[in-house]
């Protein structure tokens, strides 16, 4: 078993990690913009 992200070494695990972070940030941005639009 390798330490890193999702049991993968950092050189590959970082790809999955940044993907998840981008997904969450994208969702937060859309929610904030959606609320602004409604106002």
């Amino acid at each position, binding site marked *: *078993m390798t330490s890193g992200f999702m049991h*993968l070494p950092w*050189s*590959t695990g970082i790809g999955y990690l*940044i*993907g998840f972070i*981008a*997904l969450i940030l*994208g969702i937060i941005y*859309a929610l904030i913009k959606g609320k602004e639009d409604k106002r």
Partner: protein
Amino acid sequence: MSQLALSWIFVIAYILFMLWLGLKGYKGSKTLEGFFLADRKLGPWIVSFSFFSTLLSTAAFLGGGGTGFLLGFAWPAYMFMFNIIFAVVPWIFIAPRIRVFTEKLKSLTIPDFFAFRYENQLVRVIASIVILIALEFNMIAAYKASGNLLQVLLDVPYVIGILIFLVPVLIYTFVGGFKAVAWTDFIQGVLMLAGGVILFLLVMQHVGGWSAGIAELSKLKLMGKIPGKVLLELGGFGPPPIMKAGLVTQFTLSLAFAICAANIGLPHLIIRFYAAKNVEVIRKGMIITPIIIGLFVFTVYSIGPFAWLIIPKYVAPEALAQFVRDPDTVIPFLIQKLLPVGLNAFLLVAIIAAGQSTISSIIMVLVSALSRDVIQVAKPGIDEKKLLSFTRWATVILGFVPFFLAIKPPGIVSVIVGLAFSVIGSAFTAPLLIGLYWRGGTAQGAWISMILSTATCIWWTLIYYQKVWIYPIIPGLIVGIVSFVVISWFTKKPSATILEMIKAGS
């Protein structure tokens, strides 16, 4: 019931359903705006699934899933990262503005938008020529993949396989226009997502779960000699000539980046934003689309490396080299071996759906460029009904051109398809994305950057690609962006109306 009979039943039922959706779309396709954009009335789920299923084709299912067998986890990990990033970017930075812009300007196509934004017909003509040539060639790959797949799974000749794939698409696009394309895209997207997740879960069940599978892989000897740990590291494993040159890392990262970065400029993706009912649809799509793209890419693309734990159970070690040479065969092999009869017929339909959703969307962009941006420009007074009738028949003609090229594809076909994809992905990014925000973007900057990025992709493919293994879209994008900015800087700015519109954000 035999597997073959069940596969036929699933395929026929699926095709009939798609044709029924096509007929349902007819009512809303009696005007040009209806035929090209479904009267701009699509909701968030339809637009999002349509974006997803258009983006990810048969190549994503077979090639995307199989390439991890060759490049290890670096492939799914970085494809996941870039797919999410380049799904989020167009939805945040292009969708809201282009929807409002094009509705105000009554623009129906991407070249049409360029003509209004840059107040220049030459930009429109050059954009249309790039679309018509590059997308026609781009379709050959999907026809070839579907012909090969159906030849094996339905036991029909290769050409018949392509026709089973193509003819329903042409019928529902001809009859129902964009509304039919969007609705079939939605159903096809649901099938793709369900198929991908089911296959991933079965693979996980087979290898004992994600962490147990990775632990097993790190103990494995690939083909009896290479330590399985190489599959876990970036740049650890790859095609033999690239491994020898020590360039696997840059090959993997540049390929993943190139495939995903193209999302920003692909006209058959961007046109979905035109058809959204309102800005609220765009906001919801911003959330839905990256989630479904991420789910599909994570599940399907991550299957490849785990296949090293499954395929050796069924084939001799010396036969594994065949899967390394042609990773597109990995997913069909797993479907055949792991899935029970019935479920594998469902997966076959999901893969056909992946290809059809992309092809129908490309055909729509092609016919709209031909009718709106070539015919209507050459004959401005042409009757709308006449033009609409021409458009429907153009669907059939433009859909069949790549068919003839795919019947006996030349050996160089994969190079041409890669080049066409690079051209279409790099030529429009700067005039579209930067042009939506930067008031300094000019017509000369737009059309010259399109020509220069196209020329760069051709030059790079012919001279450099097989020396440095960096995909041509990357130099194409760089040249396109730099030339657009530099030339715009020194040329005449657009009129006050356009400048005001950009300043106001719509």
